[in-house]
C-alpha cells in the first residue's frame, strides 16, 4: 500500500523544485490483526527469547547445548549405520522409543532454563501488565506462551527422531513400505507431543509460583530429578512395589511413550497402561490448576 506523497507543509509556497515534508506523526488506519495477531507476536517473541535469538551470546549457550545433545546421538547412529559393513546391518535396531529416554536429561534442563525465562521475566519486567492492556487477556496470553514453549520443546524431542527416521530410511534401514513409515511417524509425533506438553505444563506451573528465575529453575530441576531419585531409591532400597516408581514425575511421559511404541525396552512390569496414563494426566491437570490459580490471583496494571 504505497502512501501518497505527503502534502507539502501548508504556508510554504511550493516552487517547482523545493518542498518541505511534514515528518510528524504518521497514523496507521489500516486493518489490525486483533487477538490472533497479538498471540502470534507473543509466540514469535517467546520462541526467539527461548532460543536466545536477537540477544547476547550468553543467552544462546543453553539452547545450542540442548540442540546438540538432542541431535548428535541421531547423527552418530546414522554414522554407525552407514559405516558398518552391510553384514552387520541386521544388528542395528532402530530404537526410536529409546531415543526419547536418551535425550530426557537435555529436555529437563532445557525446560528448567526456558520456562522461567519465558514466564517469570514477563512478570518481573512489567511486560505482563502491558500485555494485559493490549487485546490479549490472561487466557490467550497463557496459550501463546504455552504453544511457544511446546514448539521449542518439540524442536528438541520430536524433530531429532524424525531426523533419525529419515536418516535411517536413506540407508534403507528405515521401515519398509509407506504404511509402516506413516505409522511410525505417527507414533514419534505422538511421543514428541506428549513429552512436550508434559514438560511445558510443569515448567509453566513452577514459573508461576515465583517471580525469580533462579528459584523456578531450581524448583523444576529438584522436582523432576529429585522425584526420580526418590522413586528409584525407594524401589531398590526398600524393595517396595513398582507402582511407587510412578512417583518419578520425570519418568511418566516415558512410561506412556513406551506403551505407544510397545517398545522392546520393557515398561515397568505390573504397572498397567491406565495407571501410567492416569498419573501422566494427573500431573498435567495439577500443573494447569497451579497456572490458572497463579495467573488469576495476579493483580495486573499495578
Amino acid at each position: 500500500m504505497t502512501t501518497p506523497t505527503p502534502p507539502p507543509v501548508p504556508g510554504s509556497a511550493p516552487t517547482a523544485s523545493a518542498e518541505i515534508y511534514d515528518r510528524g506523526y504518521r497514523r496507521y488506519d489500516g486493518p489490525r490483526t486483533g487477538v490472533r495477531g497479538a498471540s502470534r507476536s507473543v509466540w514469535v517473541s517467546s520462541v526467539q527469547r527461548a532460543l536466545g535469538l536477537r540477544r547476547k551470546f550468553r543467552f544462546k549457550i543453553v539452547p545450542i547445548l540442548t540442540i546438540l545433545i538432542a541431535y548428535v546421538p541421531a547423527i552418530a547412529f546414522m554414522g554407525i549405520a552407514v559405516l558398518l559393513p552391510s553384514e552387520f546391518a541386521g544388528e542395528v535396531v532402530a530404537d526410536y522409543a529409546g531415543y526419547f529416554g536418551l535425550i530426557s536429561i537435555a529436555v529437563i534442563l532445557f525446560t528448567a532454563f526456558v520456562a522461567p525465562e519465558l514466564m517469570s521475566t514477563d512478570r518481573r519486567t512489567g511486560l505482563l501488565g502491558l500485555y494485559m492492556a493490549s487485546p490479549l487477556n490472561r487466557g490467550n496470553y497463557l496459550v501463546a506462551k504455552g504453544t511457544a514453549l511446546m514448539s521449542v520443546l518439540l524442536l528438541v524431542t520430536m524433530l531429532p527422531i524424525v531426523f533419525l527416521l529419515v536418516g535411517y530410511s536413506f540407508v534403507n534401514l528405515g521401515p519398509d513400505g509407506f504404511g509402516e513409515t506413516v505409522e511410525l511417524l505417527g507414533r514419534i509425533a505422538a511421543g514428541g507431543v506428549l513429552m512436550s506438553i508434559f514438560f511445558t505444563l510443569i515448567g509453566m506451573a513452577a514459573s508461576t509460583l515465583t517471580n525469580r528465575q533462579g528459584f523456578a529453575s531450581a524448583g523444576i530441576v529438584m522436582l523432576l530429578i529429585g522425584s526420580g531419585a526418590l522413586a528409584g531409591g525407594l524401589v531398590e532400597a526398600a524393595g517396595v512395589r513398582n507402582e511407587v516408581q510412578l512417583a518419578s514425575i520425570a519418568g511418566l511421559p516415558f512410561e506412556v511413550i513406551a506403551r505407544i511404541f510397545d517398545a522392546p525396552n520393557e515398561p515397568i512390569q505390573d504397572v498397567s497402561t491406565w495407571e501410567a496414563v492416569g498419573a501422566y494426566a494427573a500431573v498435567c491437570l495439577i500443573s494447569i490448576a497451579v497456572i490458572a490459580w497463579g495467573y488469576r490471583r495476579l493483580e495486573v496494571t499495578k
Partner: protein
Amino acid sequence: MHTAAVGTPTSPPPVISATAVSKSWGDHRVFSNLTASVTSGVTGLLGSNGSGKTTLFGMLLGLHHPDGGTLSVLGEDPSNAGPELRQRIGYSPEHHSLPNDVAAQDFVRHIAQVHGLPTREATTRSSDALWLVGLGEERARPIGTMSTGQRQRVKLAQAIAHSPDLILLDEPTDGLDPVQRDDMLELIRRVGTEYGIDVVLSSHLLEEVERIADNVVIIAEGQVAAAGPIDELQTGRGGMIVVVTDRQAQLMDALRATGLDVRDDGSRLIVGADIGADELSDTVRDAVARVGAPLRRMSPMQNSLEDIFLAEVHGR
C-alpha cells in the same frame, strides 16, 4: 461539586464518559458515584494517593469491571468491547520496570505488533515513535542501559507507536528531574495537540497539569470533586495579586485609601475581589506609581488548581 458546563451540545462527543460508576475491592470502596466526561485534548487526572487512579485506568481498559454505573471509552463499553478497544488505547504504567535486556526498538515494535499492527508497519512506526520522543540515536540500545528519563520516554513511545486514539499515562514524569520533566511535559503536550491522540495523564503535581492540560478531573473520596476545562475552572474570584520589593506598607495604605479591600498574604498583597478587573488594574497601577514601589509582580487572582483541590477535596 464544582463542575463547569461540560459536554455542551456544540462540543465534540466525550472521549470518555462515566455515569454513577461504583467500584470496590473487597470492603475497600474505591469509587462510590463517579460521574465525569473527558473531552478530546490533554486531560489531567488528579487525586490524592490511593484515590483509585490506577483502578480507573484498569476499568477504562476493560480489565476490571465497575460494580455499578456505565462507562464508555471512545464510544464503546470497555467491559464487553475489551480487545478491540484496547487495540486503540496506549497505556504507560506507573512503575518503571521494563525488559532490561531487550533493545528499545524491539520492545516498542513488539508492543505495536501486540496492538495489531502488521510486522512491516510496526517496525517503521516504532522507529518513528522513538525518534519523536527524542531517542532516535539510542533506539538500538538495551533498555537496561537507559536512565530514568530515557525509560519514561520509551514508555511514552510504546504507548503512541501503534496509532492509538487515546493514551493513558500513569504518573509519566515520576522520577524525572526538572529539566527532564519539562521535556516530557512538552512531548505529552505535542502528542495531545499535533498527533491527534487524546491524552489522559494522572499526576499528583498540580503545577504540571496546570501547565499542559486542557481539562482536569479531580477525584476524591470515590467521587469527582471537580471536572471541566481548566480555564473555566480557574476563572472567577476577581481581584489581583500584587508583589512589590519595597514600600509595601505605604502601598497598602494607598490602596486602602481608594476604598479597596487589601489583604497581606505573607510576601504578596491580595487586592479587592469585588470590583471588575479593568478599573481595579488602573487603580492599582496608579497607587503603585504614586507610592513609587518597585513592582515585581502583578496578576489577576486565579484559582490555582491547588486552591480548587484544597477547597473541593477537603471542603467536604
